[in-house]
């Protein structure tokens, strides 16, 4: 036993000593903490936004809770506040509606936001839209909003005292204090103004198939007309001058997205999704018309395209039938004019504004019923719209260069980048379409939540660079894409 008395105490001491001196390991604190906000030269104390459809949070053809909560101004301020110990207030005119009000789809009962649906098994990759039940707009009850963005307004509307035709403005008007939106913005004495206007000045014209007046005389500009460029410039200058002179705020001007390639204008393409069983009926329907065309074409007076619906032709020739006023006038033997119909060609596209897909078994839309020019883009239209947008953006850019308080944010850059192959955020694909990877909402024009987050990130990066700030960016993958009708 004498060993025990010698060895055990020594050994026990050794063990205990090691236990004492050995440091237990503590995990470091979680590394996802956000760095405190450093605004740099920016002052985020009071941000006011004068904007249009996109800045309002409009999405899926409606203004509804999800879109509004994810408007790029709201996301921007949210990120600023996530890093700020003392959050800045930012009031949006809450719509308080899950599905919102969809003015395009609401013919009778109010309809709400669109969802995307797979058209049918005939052409499985063809997507279309379907609205859900909506709610009529209700008056806004809160304080004067800082996001003064109104869906559907043109540039000149912020100077207008008569905007009540716009239901989205009308719901606010009772709670606004100033005669115009610009006055309201100035009255708020913002520290930073975001000006995101001008889209609607071209969009309405484009979305109606370019049938509107390209050179209307202000102030008589119809909804489907293009805002003349000079008028656009004058108006923009007026707005900027007042903001420069009547506020101390830095002004962040957002250019117009080049929407000419957005799904609204490209998604539906030119083909009629009809079956092989239906094509014979359509072809038979146009037999007389085609015979008249043949007579005309053999007359040597000119050439008119016939309507090609033959069962043994490939479906790629079964294109939608449209009206086209540019076709030759052809007088028939009975003195009547031969209708100016043709089939759409590759590179042309139906517009997303159509209420139904072309068919041969229902209304015959696009087959038995030729489609008006209002609902399609022909070759060259897309390029024309794109060119107009660039001209208007040049106007904005020129004006921005007149003051060092104005910062020109090129919103096109990041959205256009998604049109390049394989645009990804942290591995996840982002595509410029309506698919589940898409960044556009079900209305085909406005950005969905992923798109809005993408745009916001680019804006944040712009602000951080220009103002030497450190606003954290968003994880785009935390944002959902479009909601699909699951009807299988």
């Amino acid at each position, binding site marked *: 036993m004498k060993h025990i008395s010698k060895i055990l105490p020594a050994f026990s001491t050794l063990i205990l000593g090691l236990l004492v001196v050995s440091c237990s390991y503590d995990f470091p604190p979680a590394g996802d903490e956000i760095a405190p906000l450093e605004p740099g030269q920016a002052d985020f104390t009071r941000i006011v936004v004068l904007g249009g459809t996109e800045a309002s949070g409009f999405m899926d053809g409606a203004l509804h809770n999800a879109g509004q909560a994810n408007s790029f101004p709201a996301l921007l301020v949210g990120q600023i506040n996530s890093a700020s110990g003392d959050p800045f207030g930012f009031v949006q005119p809450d719509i308080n509606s899950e599905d919102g009000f969809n003015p395009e789809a609401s013919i009778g009962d109010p309809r709400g936001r669109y969802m995307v649906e797979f058209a049918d098994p005939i052409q499985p990759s063809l997507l279309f839209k379907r609205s859900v039940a909506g709610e009529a707009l209700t008056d806004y009850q809160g304080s004067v909003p800082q996001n003064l963005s109104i869906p559907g307004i043109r540039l000149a509307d912020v100077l207008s005292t008569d905007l009540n035709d716009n239901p989205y403005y009308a719901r606010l008007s009772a709670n606004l204090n100033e005669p115009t939106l610009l006055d309201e913005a100035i009255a708020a004495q913002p520290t930073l103004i975001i000006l995101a206007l001008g889209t609607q000045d071209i969009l309405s014209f484009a979305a109606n198939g370019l049938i509107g007046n390209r050179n209307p005389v202000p102030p008589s500009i119809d909804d489907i007309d293009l805002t003349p460029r000079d008028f656009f410039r004058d108006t923009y200058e007026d707005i900027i001058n007042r903001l420069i002179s009547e506020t101390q705020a830095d002004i962040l001007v957002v250019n117009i997205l080049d929407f000419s390639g957005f799904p609204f204008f490209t998604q539906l393409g030119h083909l009629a999704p009809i079956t092989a069983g239906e094509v014979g009926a359509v072809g038979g329907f146009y037999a007389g018309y085609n015979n008249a065309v043949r007579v005309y074409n053999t007359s040597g007076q000119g050439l008119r395209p016939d309507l090609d619906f033959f069962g043994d032709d490939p479906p790629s020739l079964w294109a939608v039938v449209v009206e086209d006023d540019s076709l030759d006038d052809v007088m028939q033997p009975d003195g009547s004019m031969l209708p100016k119909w043709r089939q759409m060609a590759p590179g042309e596209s139906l517009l997303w504004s159509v209420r139904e897909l072309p068919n041969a078994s229902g209304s015959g839309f696009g087959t038995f019923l030729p489609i008006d020019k209002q609902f399609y883009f022909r070759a060259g239209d897309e390029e024309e719209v794109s060119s107009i947008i660039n001209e208007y953006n040049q106007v904005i850019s020129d004006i921005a260069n007149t003051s060092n308080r104005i910062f020109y944010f090129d919103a096109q850059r990041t959205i256009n980048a998604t049109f390049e192959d394989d645009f990804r955020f942290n591995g996840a694909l982002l595509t410029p379409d309506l698919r589940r990877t898409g960044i556009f909402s079900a209305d085909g024009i406005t950005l969905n939540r992923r798109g809005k987050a993408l745009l916001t990130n680019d804006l944040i990066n712009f602000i951080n660079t220009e103002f030497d700030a450190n606003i954290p960016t968003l994880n785009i993958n935390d*944002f959902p894409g479009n909601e699909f009708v699951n009807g299988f």
Partner: protein
Amino acid sequence: MLKHRGITFLTWCVLALSTAPAVFGQDLVTIRGKITDSADGSPLANVEVSLSGESIVINTDPQGFFEVSLKKAFPFTINYSLRGYEPHSTRLTKASKDAIAVKLNRIIEQESDQLIVRVFGRVQDANNGKPLKSTNILVKDHLVDGREIGTVTDSDGKFILFIGKEPPFDLTFSHVGYQFHEVTVNKLNADNLVVNMLKRSLALKEVTITGQKVEQKVLKADATVEKLDIRQIQRVPSFDFYDALANMKDVEIATQSMQFKSVNSRGFNATGNVRFVQMVDGMDNQAPGFNFPIGNFGGVSELDLENIELYPGPSSAKYGPNAFNGILFMQSKDPFIFQGVSAQLKLAANRFPEGGGGSDFLDFGGEGVYDFAIRYAKAWNDKIAFKTTFSIIKAKDWAANDVNNIGEGERFETHAESPGYDGVNIYGDEIQANLPIGPLGTNVLVTRTGYAEENLMDYNFTNYKINSALHYKINDKITAILQNNFGTGTTFYTGDNRVFLGDFQLLQTKLELNSERFMVRTYTTQQRSGNSYDSRFLALQLMRTARSDEEWFRIYELAFRGLLRSRGVAGGDHEVARQTADSDFGLESPGTARFEPSSDAFNAQKERIINTQGFDTGAGFTDNSALYHVEGRYSFLDQIGFANVDIGGNYRLYDPESEGIVYPDSAGNDITMFEYGGFIEATKEVMPERLKIVASLRFDKNENFQGRFTPRLSSVYTVNEIHNFRASFQTGFRNPTLREQFIFQSLGSGRAVGGLGEMIAPLDLAGNAFFTQTVDAFNEAVDRDINPEGDDQIPLNQEQAELRNLNILQDNIIQATDIREIRPEQVSTFELGYKSLLADGKLVLDVNYYHNTYQNFIGIVRVIKPKTSPQTDAFLAARQVNNSVERDVFFINSNASESVISQGISFNVDYTSRGRFVLGVNGAWANLTSESDDPIVPGFNTPSFKANYTIGHNRVAENVGFKFILRTRRAFQWESNFGDGEVPEYFNLDTQVSIKLPKMHSLLKIGFSNIGNEYYADTFGGPRIGAVPYIQITYDPTFY
């Protein structure tokens, strides 16, 4: 009869012998002869004539004659001694009527004054007086011509020495299993020296060279034990003694390279086997960064190996939590006992082509294998002894070259037939994407081209090992040992990926104090990863350097769709699409989109990538982890009245250093982990020599887990001293290893994550991820809707089908309770055994049965987390879960929720025939009795039946022995992080013929393992092993 002196004695002797001829079976021999001076032929009187192994000594008469008659078997040696003359001896091999003529040389003049002292004596066990044969005897501090003078005792423990040195002088006595002994010889005791040797203390492990087929200790062990002693090790019929472990009945080997073979027993085998402990001289020789032993990389050279003991099955109660599947002890030689110079040279060849040889006559196409070891040990006195062993092996390792398909398509298909091909040992081809290029826009799985392992690994290696130890006896009972084991070189292992360990180093340094009653030991294990790299990441980086995954798949899709027809690329052809994506098509600057193996560009990129640390941009990794261990044990023996009681305790600290590559131990986050434990064991002979009961209780605590007790109760019942029945029950547990707790390593196709809550929480899985089974079920449902069986069902496209089956994902999103923090795994084991030595020791019979119930098995749960949470957008997540760049895959260490039961029977029958041929067969059945669908449960990875058939003879002719072993294994399924698949059945014949060369003190062994060159792998994805002819010569005067 003796003519002169000692007549009475000899008469008695002859009478005694003659009374017992039946016992000894020897004939009466009469020897006569005459001894003369070699110089002048004069007869020499009073020459002492003695016979080896006999105590008889006679003297020549004045005419130089002598004569003796006795019963003795040939051959034997007659020794002659006369002062002033050189000692001489005659070896008689048969009887002869002729007288022996002996001429003695007079010692040269300057030495003529020296005495020739004859020392005669007997060595015996101090406790029971039994003679000790083969005891080594050396004259201390006395060299003749630079050589030590000595002898060994005969079968009666007797010896005789002739020494040209004036007494007093010292003789040293050493015998395996006994304490070193030293005796001073003087004129009084030189004629009748009796040396009593003490058995070595319990603190030193017994050396297991015995004349018996099975030791008593093994026969009466309370647990199944497999042993190999030094002679068995040296007669293993294969190039590497490690292969002998696979010949044990309950043991499986997982070969990962020539130098890295993992040992396992009784199921749940693994390449990185954390459930099996390997001890070298009391040190756990796991690589501390890996938590499993790297075979014998840093262990003991065969030349220095004294014995191996292996305890299959859970041994946690005695040896700690990690001995969950078993424990292997390797004991190196004691420098006090095994002294002098020994050396071993092995020459072999491997990698012979399958199905034929090289192109030229006598060109068999193999590669050379060269292995050399040298050992030197010296005991200066009974206080200090030192040994060192150096070994080097140079060879080209086995290749892992299984190209069978484990991806989309049939097993035999390649990329030519299946665009989703994923070869077993092709790396980089696991990068996949679902491209919408199928009918109706359905997805087609496409994988990148990848590289074969042989293009990524240089299999040539040269490894070194140095083992050194200094033993100091503080007193008769306490010995201090300072030991260093160091191994360095190259090896390969199959972890989550196949890994090249280049310039890898493993060092173990130990300081130990031990005595019969107590032991205190402390050691450290240090690993240095050197220039190691991960072959899969090398492949990935090579491919991605040439062309990004996104770009590669984009070009593939464009090409297949025919969108590149304008550039001369035919559409609709997978091979063309692959060639296009691998070509320089579309590169902005001149270059290549695939580095062809062995090209200069390939080699340059490979060099760059393996020298780049971290798997984001490189393939190299750092793991310079260490562990520090201290333990103690005290044996009360008979100090406590009712039983023999042992107590012990240990403490261990892990200190990983991976620079953030394996663990999250980047700068400022120095991870450590400690654990400690203690045990008490009581042994009681309830019925002396008949019934022994052993009870033990162990407590272990890991820094991150609650402490737990492990009890064990066992008994051995001996009937008629022949039949030994044993039964035992114990519960055991295993704490998660350092890796299982802390790993945070990218694996290419995902990331391995430790199971601690702090490791899992940041992954934010709850509500955002799926188990792979969920995704598999979803994909199967989607496939059914794309390809409906009924004609009346309209096929859906990919997106529609996914939308339709979205509920499968939505209903199975991982919840917070689904992944719990890792816990220790547990086993309850019940074992019955029988062992006996029958038929006068000719037949050994050993049978045992075990039944293991495992709970909370630690394994890997595979989780897929899409970049977008399914709660945010389930439809988007449904796309991302099948797209390798849009998801994160985590291999999380976790616990199974279901219990698993395994059981098995193993047996060993060993029979020595009349002609002393040894015939043996052993085998083991093992199976899971309760299959589990729980994916966490690790693969059983063990054949349902294995058997080894042995035939051998230690002395089939003079100095010649042989051994053949036929090994058979049934095919079995292998599951691991590396991959799942079948390991085909195999049959191996290993052979050796050994020839003892007494004059050279050497053993020559010539053998051929896997004699048919039928390549086989014992793991899925591991190297494939072919034939190895070899020749080995071991110089060891201690034995030969």
